[in-house]
Protein backbone atom coordinates (compact mmCIF):
# COMPACT_ATOMS: atom_id res chain seq x y z
CA UNK A 1 0.00 0.00 0.00
CA UNK A 2 1.28 3.44 -0.98
CA UNK A 3 2.12 5.86 1.92
CA UNK A 4 0.84 9.47 1.79
CA UNK A 5 3.11 12.49 2.43
CA UNK A 6 2.54 12.59 6.18
CA UNK A 7 3.20 8.91 6.51
CA UNK A 8 6.42 9.24 4.52
CA UNK A 9 7.61 12.08 6.69
CA UNK A 10 6.92 10.10 9.85
CA UNK A 11 8.62 7.09 8.36
CA UNK A 12 11.72 9.05 7.34
CA UNK A 13 11.90 10.65 10.76
CA UNK A 14 11.73 7.24 12.39
CA UNK A 15 14.46 5.85 10.18
CA UNK A 16 16.75 8.87 9.99
CA UNK A 17 15.62 10.99 12.96
CA UNK A 18 18.93 10.58 14.71
CA UNK A 19 20.84 11.86 11.63
CA UNK A 20 18.51 14.81 11.23
CA UNK A 21 18.95 15.57 14.93
CA UNK A 22 22.72 15.37 14.77
CA UNK A 23 22.73 17.51 11.66
CA UNK A 24 20.57 20.08 13.39
CA UNK A 25 22.89 20.22 16.39
CA UNK A 26 25.99 20.68 14.30
CA UNK A 27 24.27 23.36 12.22
CA UNK A 28 23.36 25.19 15.40
CA UNK A 29 26.81 24.79 16.88
CA UNK A 30 28.49 26.12 13.74
CA UNK A 31 26.23 29.09 13.29
CA UNK A 32 26.26 30.07 16.97
CA UNK A 33 30.02 29.77 17.30
CA UNK A 34 30.68 31.47 13.96
CA UNK A 35 28.25 34.28 14.65
CA UNK A 36 29.54 35.00 18.16
CA UNK A 37 33.15 35.06 16.99
CA UNK A 38 32.05 37.18 14.05
CA UNK A 39 30.27 39.64 16.30
CA UNK A 40 33.48 40.10 18.25
CA UNK A 41 35.43 40.71 15.02
CA UNK A 42 32.70 43.08 13.84
CA UNK A 43 32.72 45.13 17.03
CA UNK A 44 36.51 45.37 16.96
CA UNK A 45 36.53 46.54 13.33
CA UNK A 46 33.60 48.91 13.83
CA UNK A 47 35.33 50.49 16.81
CA UNK A 48 38.62 50.79 14.93
CA UNK A 49 36.89 52.43 11.97
CA UNK A 50 35.20 55.04 14.15
CA UNK A 51 38.31 55.99 16.11
CA UNK A 52 39.23 59.60 15.38
CA UNK A 53 42.76 60.45 14.35
CA UNK A 54 43.79 63.79 15.83
CA UNK A 55 46.33 66.03 14.12
CA UNK A 56 48.00 66.56 17.51
CA UNK A 57 48.62 62.81 17.99
CA UNK A 58 52.16 61.58 17.51
CA UNK A 59 53.23 60.54 14.02
CA UNK A 60 53.62 56.89 15.03
CA UNK A 61 50.14 56.76 16.50
CA UNK A 62 48.61 58.34 13.40
CA UNK A 63 50.37 55.96 11.04
CA UNK A 64 49.35 53.00 13.20
CA UNK A 65 45.67 53.96 13.22
CA UNK A 66 45.67 54.74 9.50
CA UNK A 67 47.08 51.27 8.82
CA UNK A 68 44.57 49.56 11.08
CA UNK A 69 41.76 51.41 9.37
CA UNK A 70 43.09 50.55 5.92
CA UNK A 71 43.34 46.85 6.70
CA UNK A 72 39.93 46.81 8.30
CA UNK A 73 38.42 48.59 5.29
CA UNK A 74 39.98 46.17 2.82
CA UNK A 75 38.77 43.21 4.85
CA UNK A 76 35.22 44.51 4.96
CA UNK A 77 35.14 45.22 1.20
CA UNK A 78 36.51 41.83 0.24
CA UNK A 79 34.20 39.77 2.40
CA UNK A 80 31.10 41.77 1.62
CA UNK A 81 31.88 41.69 -2.07
CA UNK A 82 32.22 37.92 -2.54
CA UNK A 83 29.79 35.04 -1.95
CA UNK A 84 30.24 32.98 1.19
CA UNK A 85 30.29 29.74 -0.77
CA UNK A 86 33.26 30.91 -2.83
CA UNK A 87 35.06 32.15 0.27
CA UNK A 88 34.58 28.75 1.84
CA UNK A 89 36.06 26.99 -1.21
CA UNK A 90 39.02 29.33 -1.49
CA UNK A 91 39.77 29.07 2.19
CA UNK A 92 39.30 25.34 2.58
CA UNK A 93 40.94 24.12 -0.61
CA UNK A 94 43.46 26.93 -0.63
CA UNK A 95 44.72 26.03 2.81
CA UNK A 96 44.69 22.35 1.89
CA UNK A 97 46.81 22.97 -1.18
CA UNK A 98 49.43 24.66 0.96
CA UNK A 99 49.47 21.82 3.43
CA UNK A 100 47.21 23.26 6.11
CA UNK A 101 44.47 20.78 6.84
CA UNK A 102 41.50 22.03 8.78
CA UNK A 103 38.27 20.14 9.34
CA UNK A 104 35.20 21.21 7.38
CA UNK A 105 33.71 22.22 10.73
CA UNK A 106 36.57 24.64 11.51
CA UNK A 107 36.45 25.97 7.96
CA UNK A 108 32.71 26.54 8.26
CA UNK A 109 33.06 28.36 11.58
CA UNK A 110 35.92 30.44 10.17
CA UNK A 111 34.02 31.48 7.06
CA UNK A 112 30.92 32.37 9.03
CA UNK A 113 33.03 34.33 11.49
CA UNK A 114 34.82 36.36 8.81
CA UNK A 115 31.60 37.06 6.93
CA UNK A 116 29.70 38.08 10.02
CA UNK A 117 32.66 40.22 11.06
CA UNK A 118 32.64 42.09 7.77
CA UNK A 119 28.91 42.77 7.87
CA UNK A 120 28.87 43.64 11.57
CA UNK A 121 31.78 46.06 11.17
CA UNK A 122 29.58 48.29 9.02
CA UNK A 123 26.58 47.85 11.29
CA UNK A 124 28.58 48.71 14.40
CA UNK A 125 30.14 51.73 12.71
CA UNK A 126 26.68 52.85 11.63
CA UNK A 127 25.38 52.29 15.16
CA UNK A 128 28.17 54.40 16.58
CA UNK A 129 27.76 57.33 14.18
CA UNK A 130 24.00 57.30 14.74
CA UNK A 131 24.59 58.31 18.37
CA UNK A 132 24.27 62.06 18.86
CA UNK A 133 27.65 63.78 18.89
CA UNK A 134 26.57 65.52 22.10
CA UNK A 135 27.10 62.22 23.93
CA UNK A 136 30.76 62.32 22.87
CA UNK A 137 31.11 65.99 23.74
CA UNK A 138 29.54 65.48 27.16
CA UNK A 139 32.23 62.89 27.86
CA UNK A 140 35.06 64.94 26.39
CA UNK A 141 34.10 67.94 28.50
CA UNK A 142 34.60 65.78 31.60
CA UNK A 143 38.07 64.82 30.37
CA UNK A 144 37.18 61.27 29.39
CA UNK A 145 39.47 59.57 26.86
CA UNK A 146 37.88 58.42 23.58
CA UNK A 147 37.70 54.74 24.50
CA UNK A 148 36.13 55.42 27.89
CA UNK A 149 33.37 57.37 26.15
CA UNK A 150 33.07 54.61 23.57
CA UNK A 151 32.67 51.75 26.05
CA UNK A 152 30.76 53.49 28.85
CA UNK A 153 28.49 55.81 26.89
CA UNK A 154 28.27 55.24 23.15
CA UNK A 155 28.39 51.47 22.66
CA UNK A 156 25.75 50.72 25.30
CA UNK A 157 23.45 53.07 23.40
CA UNK A 158 24.45 51.88 19.95
CA UNK A 159 24.02 48.26 21.00
CA UNK A 160 20.27 48.54 21.11
CA UNK A 161 20.11 49.74 17.53
CA UNK A 162 22.43 46.94 16.47
CA UNK A 163 20.41 44.05 17.91
CA UNK A 164 17.98 43.72 14.97
CA UNK A 165 20.88 43.47 12.52
CA UNK A 166 22.58 40.92 14.77
CA UNK A 167 19.40 38.89 14.55
CA UNK A 168 19.37 39.12 10.76
CA UNK A 169 22.94 37.91 10.56
CA UNK A 170 22.27 35.03 12.91
CA UNK A 171 19.40 33.83 10.77
CA UNK A 172 21.34 34.31 7.55
CA UNK A 173 24.14 32.26 9.06
CA UNK A 174 21.88 29.40 10.10
CA UNK A 175 20.59 29.20 6.54
CA UNK A 176 24.01 29.74 5.00
CA UNK A 177 25.36 26.58 6.62
CA UNK A 178 23.35 24.71 3.99
CA UNK A 179 25.58 25.93 1.17
CA UNK A 180 28.70 24.87 3.02
CA UNK A 181 28.24 21.31 1.77
CA UNK A 182 30.63 22.43 -0.98
CA UNK A 183 33.48 21.97 1.48
CA UNK A 184 32.11 18.75 2.88
CA UNK A 185 30.44 20.42 5.80
CA UNK A 186 27.22 18.56 5.25
CA UNK A 187 25.73 16.94 8.30
CA UNK A 188 22.17 18.03 7.79
CA UNK A 189 22.47 18.01 4.01
CA UNK A 190 23.93 14.51 4.16
CA UNK A 191 21.13 13.23 6.38
CA UNK A 192 18.61 14.65 3.96
CA UNK A 193 20.35 13.26 0.89
CA UNK A 194 20.64 9.79 2.38
CA UNK A 195 17.02 9.75 3.44
CA UNK A 196 15.94 11.05 0.05
CA UNK A 197 18.09 8.73 -2.02
CA UNK A 198 17.32 5.51 -0.20
CA UNK A 199 13.57 5.74 -0.71
CA UNK A 200 13.55 8.10 -3.64
CA UNK A 201 11.56 10.60 -1.55
CA UNK A 202 13.22 13.97 -2.24
CA UNK A 203 10.16 16.07 -1.60
CA UNK A 204 9.46 14.71 1.89
CA UNK A 205 13.12 14.63 2.94
CA UNK A 206 13.75 18.25 1.95
CA UNK A 207 10.45 19.25 3.50
CA UNK A 208 11.79 17.96 6.83
CA UNK A 209 15.03 19.89 6.41
CA UNK A 210 13.12 23.00 5.44
CA UNK A 211 11.01 22.69 8.57
CA UNK A 212 14.12 22.29 10.72
CA UNK A 213 15.65 25.51 9.36
CA UNK A 214 12.35 27.28 9.73
CA UNK A 215 11.97 26.25 13.36
CA UNK A 216 15.55 27.24 14.23
CA UNK A 217 15.11 30.66 12.65
CA UNK A 218 11.81 31.22 14.40
CA UNK A 219 13.28 30.35 17.79
CA UNK A 220 16.16 32.78 17.28
CA UNK A 221 13.92 35.55 16.10
CA UNK A 222 11.85 35.17 19.26
CA UNK A 223 14.93 35.04 21.52
CA UNK A 224 16.29 38.23 20.00
CA UNK A 225 13.06 40.11 20.38
CA UNK A 226 13.09 39.10 24.06
CA UNK A 227 16.63 40.47 24.35
CA UNK A 228 15.56 43.67 22.62
CA UNK A 229 12.69 44.13 25.07
CA UNK A 230 15.04 43.52 28.00
CA UNK A 231 17.45 46.20 26.73
CA UNK A 232 14.70 48.80 26.78
CA UNK A 233 15.07 49.02 30.55
CA UNK A 234 12.62 50.21 33.13
CA UNK A 235 9.94 52.68 32.17
CA UNK A 236 9.66 54.26 35.62
CA UNK A 237 11.94 55.14 38.53
CA UNK A 238 11.79 55.48 42.29
CA UNK A 239 12.14 58.91 43.87
CA UNK A 240 14.87 58.85 46.51
CA UNK A 241 12.54 60.05 49.25
CA UNK A 242 15.34 60.41 51.80
CA UNK A 243 16.49 63.49 49.88
CA UNK A 244 13.07 65.06 49.38
CA UNK A 245 13.29 67.11 52.57
CA UNK A 246 16.27 69.22 51.45
Amino acid at each position, binding site marked *: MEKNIVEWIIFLLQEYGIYFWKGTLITLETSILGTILGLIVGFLLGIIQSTPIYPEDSMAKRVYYKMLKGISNAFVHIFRGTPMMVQAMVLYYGLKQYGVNITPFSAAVLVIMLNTGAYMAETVRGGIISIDNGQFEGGKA*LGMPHFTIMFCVVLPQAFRNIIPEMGNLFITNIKMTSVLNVIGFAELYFATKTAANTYYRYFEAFLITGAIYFILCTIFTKLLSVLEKKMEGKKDYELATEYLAD
Partner: protein
Amino acid sequence: MGIINVQHLRKAFGNHEVLKDIDFSIDKGEVVCIIGSSGSGKSTLLRCLNLLEIPTSGTVYFTDEVIGGSQKKINEYRSKVGMVFQSFNLFNNMTVLENCMSGSRKVLKRSKEESRVISIKYLKKVGMAPYINAKPSQLSGGQKQRVAIARALTMEPEVLLFDEPTSALDPEMVGEVLNVIKELAKEGLTMIIVTHEMAFARDVSTKTIFMDQGVIAESNEPEKLFTNPKNPRTQAFLSRFING
Protein backbone atom coordinates in the same frame (compact mmCIF):
# COMPACT_ATOMS: atom_id res chain seq x y z
CA MET B 1 48.25 86.88 34.81
CA GLY B 2 44.69 85.57 35.03
CA ILE B 3 43.49 81.99 35.42
CA ILE B 4 42.57 81.95 31.74
CA ASN B 5 44.43 84.07 29.27
CA VAL B 6 43.57 84.20 25.58
CA GLN B 7 46.02 85.72 23.12
CA HIS B 8 45.47 86.34 19.42
CA LEU B 9 42.98 83.50 19.16
CA ARG B 10 41.77 82.82 15.62
CA LYS B 11 39.47 80.13 14.37
CA ALA B 12 38.48 79.52 10.78
CA PHE B 13 36.25 76.82 9.32
CA GLY B 14 37.62 76.52 5.80
CA ASN B 15 37.81 80.09 4.51
CA HIS B 16 35.20 81.32 6.98
CA GLU B 17 37.02 83.17 9.73
CA VAL B 18 34.74 82.89 12.74
CA LEU B 19 37.07 84.24 15.43
CA LYS B 20 39.42 87.07 14.53
CA ASP B 21 42.20 87.86 16.93
CA ILE B 22 40.48 87.42 20.29
CA ASP B 23 42.34 88.69 23.36
CA PHE B 24 41.09 88.58 26.91
CA SER B 25 41.98 87.40 30.33
CA ILE B 26 39.94 86.47 33.35
CA ASP B 27 40.96 86.23 36.99
CA LYS B 28 40.08 83.63 39.55
CA GLY B 29 36.61 84.24 40.98
CA GLU B 30 35.45 86.32 38.03
CA VAL B 31 32.15 85.70 36.30
CA VAL B 32 32.35 86.73 32.67
CA CYS B 33 29.21 86.87 30.56
CA ILE B 34 29.53 86.84 26.79
CA ILE B 35 26.67 88.36 24.82
CA GLY B 36 26.24 89.04 21.14
CA SER B 37 24.03 88.25 18.20
CA SER B 38 23.62 84.82 16.68
CA GLY B 39 26.59 83.69 14.62
CA SER B 40 29.01 86.16 16.21
CA GLY B 41 31.24 83.28 17.37
CA LYS B 42 30.35 82.96 21.07
CA SER B 43 29.97 79.19 21.06
CA THR B 44 33.07 78.76 18.94
CA LEU B 45 35.07 80.83 21.42
CA LEU B 46 33.85 78.74 24.34
CA ARG B 47 34.52 75.51 22.45
CA CYS B 48 38.05 76.69 21.71
CA LEU B 49 38.59 77.30 25.42
CA ASN B 50 37.61 73.67 26.05
CA LEU B 51 39.49 72.43 22.96
CA LEU B 52 36.34 70.92 21.50
CA GLU B 53 37.48 73.07 18.58
CA ILE B 54 41.19 73.38 17.93
CA PRO B 55 42.09 77.06 17.39
CA THR B 56 43.58 77.88 14.01
CA SER B 57 46.16 80.06 15.71
CA GLY B 58 46.77 81.89 18.94
CA THR B 59 47.36 80.71 22.47
CA VAL B 60 45.23 79.96 25.48
CA TYR B 61 46.96 79.91 28.86
CA PHE B 62 45.44 78.18 31.83
CA THR B 63 47.18 79.17 35.07
CA ASP B 64 50.17 80.34 32.99
CA GLU B 65 50.46 77.10 31.05
CA VAL B 66 49.69 76.78 27.35
CA ILE B 67 46.77 74.38 26.86
CA GLY B 68 46.89 71.60 24.28
CA GLY B 69 49.41 68.96 23.35
CA SER B 70 48.71 65.26 23.68
CA GLN B 71 45.21 63.87 24.20
CA LYS B 72 46.26 62.97 27.74
CA LYS B 73 47.17 66.57 28.52
CA ILE B 74 44.02 67.85 26.87
CA ASN B 75 41.88 65.51 28.96
CA GLU B 76 43.67 66.52 32.12
CA TYR B 77 42.98 70.15 31.30
CA ARG B 78 39.33 69.45 30.53
CA SER B 79 38.90 67.78 33.90
CA LYS B 80 39.75 71.14 35.47
CA VAL B 81 37.70 73.30 33.13
CA GLY B 82 34.12 72.05 32.99
CA MET B 83 31.52 72.78 30.37
CA VAL B 84 27.74 72.95 30.47
CA PHE B 85 26.00 72.73 27.09
CA GLN B 86 22.82 74.22 25.73
CA SER B 87 21.62 70.69 24.91
CA PHE B 88 22.69 69.22 28.31
CA ASN B 89 24.54 66.24 26.79
CA LEU B 90 23.73 63.98 29.73
CA PHE B 91 24.57 60.34 29.09
CA ASN B 92 21.28 58.77 28.03
CA ASN B 93 22.23 55.26 29.13
CA MET B 94 22.93 56.28 32.72
CA THR B 95 20.82 57.39 35.65
CA VAL B 96 21.22 60.83 37.17
CA LEU B 97 23.55 59.47 39.84
CA GLU B 98 25.62 57.46 37.35
CA ASN B 99 25.94 60.55 35.17
CA CYS B 100 27.39 62.50 38.07
CA MET B 101 29.65 59.69 39.23
CA SER B 102 31.04 58.89 35.78
CA GLY B 103 33.66 61.64 35.54
CA SER B 104 34.60 61.32 39.18
CA ARG B 105 35.23 57.60 38.80
CA LYS B 106 36.62 57.30 35.27
CA VAL B 107 38.65 60.50 35.11
CA LEU B 108 39.53 61.49 38.67
CA LYS B 109 39.71 57.80 39.71
CA ARG B 110 37.96 58.46 42.98
CA SER B 111 36.47 55.43 44.73
CA LYS B 112 32.86 54.46 44.12
CA GLU B 113 31.82 55.48 47.61
CA GLU B 114 33.60 58.82 47.49
CA SER B 115 32.15 59.56 44.05
CA ARG B 116 28.70 58.76 45.31
CA VAL B 117 29.00 61.05 48.31
CA ILE B 118 30.34 63.93 46.20
CA SER B 119 27.70 63.42 43.52
CA ILE B 120 24.90 63.50 46.04
CA LYS B 121 26.37 66.59 47.63
CA TYR B 122 26.20 68.49 44.33
CA LEU B 123 22.87 67.00 43.32
CA LYS B 124 21.46 68.31 46.60
CA LYS B 125 22.91 71.70 45.79
CA VAL B 126 20.99 71.88 42.51
CA GLY B 127 17.91 70.32 44.09
CA MET B 128 18.04 67.12 42.07
CA ALA B 129 19.02 64.56 44.72
CA PRO B 130 15.56 62.96 44.87
CA TYR B 131 15.94 62.04 41.19
CA ILE B 132 19.15 60.00 41.44
CA ASN B 133 17.45 56.91 39.97
CA ALA B 134 15.87 58.68 37.00
CA LYS B 135 17.19 58.51 33.46
CA PRO B 136 17.68 61.79 31.54
CA SER B 137 14.71 61.00 29.28
CA GLN B 138 12.48 61.06 32.35
CA LEU B 139 13.40 64.63 33.33
CA SER B 140 12.24 68.08 32.25
CA GLY B 141 14.68 70.39 30.48
CA GLY B 142 15.34 72.46 33.58
CA GLN B 143 15.96 69.34 35.62
CA LYS B 144 18.33 67.97 32.99
CA GLN B 145 20.32 71.17 32.98
CA ARG B 146 20.58 71.19 36.76
CA VAL B 147 21.87 67.60 36.66
CA ALA B 148 24.36 68.61 33.96
CA ILE B 149 25.60 71.39 36.24
CA ALA B 150 25.88 68.96 39.15
CA ARG B 151 27.80 66.56 36.92
CA ALA B 152 30.26 69.31 36.01
CA LEU B 153 30.58 70.31 39.68
CA THR B 154 31.46 66.78 40.84
CA MET B 155 34.74 67.28 38.97
CA GLU B 156 35.33 70.28 41.30
CA PRO B 157 36.55 72.33 38.33
CA GLU B 158 38.55 75.52 38.61
CA VAL B 159 36.60 77.14 35.81
CA LEU B 160 33.14 76.33 34.50
CA LEU B 161 32.04 77.28 30.98
CA PHE B 162 28.35 77.63 30.10
CA ASP B 163 27.11 77.80 26.51
CA GLU B 164 23.61 79.26 26.59
CA PRO B 165 22.51 77.03 29.47
CA THR B 166 18.90 78.20 29.32
CA SER B 167 18.30 78.63 25.59
CA ALA B 168 16.77 75.19 25.12
CA LEU B 169 14.42 75.58 28.09
CA ASP B 170 10.77 76.53 28.35
CA PRO B 171 10.46 80.02 29.88
CA GLU B 172 9.16 78.74 33.22
CA MET B 173 12.30 76.62 33.71
CA VAL B 174 14.85 79.32 32.97
CA GLY B 175 14.67 80.72 36.50
CA GLU B 176 15.55 77.50 38.32
CA VAL B 177 18.73 77.10 36.28
CA LEU B 178 19.79 80.74 36.52
CA ASN B 179 19.31 80.62 40.29
CA VAL B 180 21.72 77.70 40.55
CA ILE B 181 24.31 79.63 38.53
CA LYS B 182 23.82 82.75 40.66
CA GLU B 183 24.42 80.61 43.74
CA LEU B 184 27.70 79.35 42.25
CA ALA B 185 28.72 82.94 41.45
CA LYS B 186 28.16 83.93 45.07
CA GLU B 187 30.42 81.11 46.18
CA GLY B 188 33.20 82.48 44.02
CA LEU B 189 33.37 79.88 41.26
CA THR B 190 35.12 81.21 38.16
CA MET B 191 32.70 81.07 35.24
CA ILE B 192 32.39 82.10 31.62
CA ILE B 193 28.77 82.20 30.54
CA VAL B 194 27.43 82.72 27.03
CA THR B 195 23.86 83.92 27.42
CA HIS B 196 20.99 85.79 25.84
CA GLU B 197 19.52 86.60 29.30
CA MET B 198 20.51 90.25 29.56
CA ALA B 199 19.10 90.90 33.03
CA PHE B 200 20.94 87.87 34.32
CA ALA B 201 24.22 88.89 32.66
CA ARG B 202 23.97 92.34 34.14
CA ASP B 203 23.17 90.94 37.55
CA VAL B 204 25.69 88.12 37.85
CA SER B 205 28.76 89.08 35.84
CA THR B 206 31.84 90.90 37.01
CA LYS B 207 32.69 91.60 33.38
CA THR B 208 30.54 91.51 30.27
CA ILE B 209 31.94 90.90 26.83
CA PHE B 210 30.02 91.87 23.70
CA MET B 211 31.00 89.88 20.65
CA ASP B 212 30.26 90.90 17.11
CA GLN B 213 31.34 89.19 13.88
CA GLY B 214 34.16 87.27 15.48
CA VAL B 215 35.73 90.06 17.50
CA ILE B 216 35.28 91.39 21.01
CA ALA B 217 33.58 94.66 20.18
CA GLU B 218 33.36 95.83 23.76
CA SER B 219 34.25 94.54 27.19
CA ASN B 220 33.44 96.28 30.42
CA GLU B 221 31.85 96.07 33.86
CA PRO B 222 28.20 95.20 33.36
CA GLU B 223 26.88 98.46 34.78
CA LYS B 224 28.90 100.47 32.30
CA LEU B 225 28.35 98.22 29.32
CA PHE B 226 24.60 98.01 29.75
CA THR B 227 23.90 101.63 30.70
CA ASN B 228 26.53 103.37 28.68
CA PRO B 229 27.74 101.27 25.77
CA LYS B 230 30.61 102.91 23.90
CA ASN B 231 30.61 100.96 20.65
CA PRO B 232 27.75 101.79 18.25
CA ARG B 233 27.35 98.08 17.52
CA THR B 234 26.86 97.35 21.22
CA GLN B 235 24.31 100.15 21.32
CA ALA B 236 22.45 98.74 18.35
CA PHE B 237 22.48 95.22 19.82
CA LEU B 238 21.27 96.32 23.24
CA SER B 239 18.55 98.59 21.90
CA ARG B 240 17.31 95.72 19.75
CA PHE B 241 17.13 93.65 22.90
CA ILE B 242 15.39 96.24 24.99
CA ASN B 243 12.87 97.06 22.30
CA GLY B 244 12.25 93.32 21.81
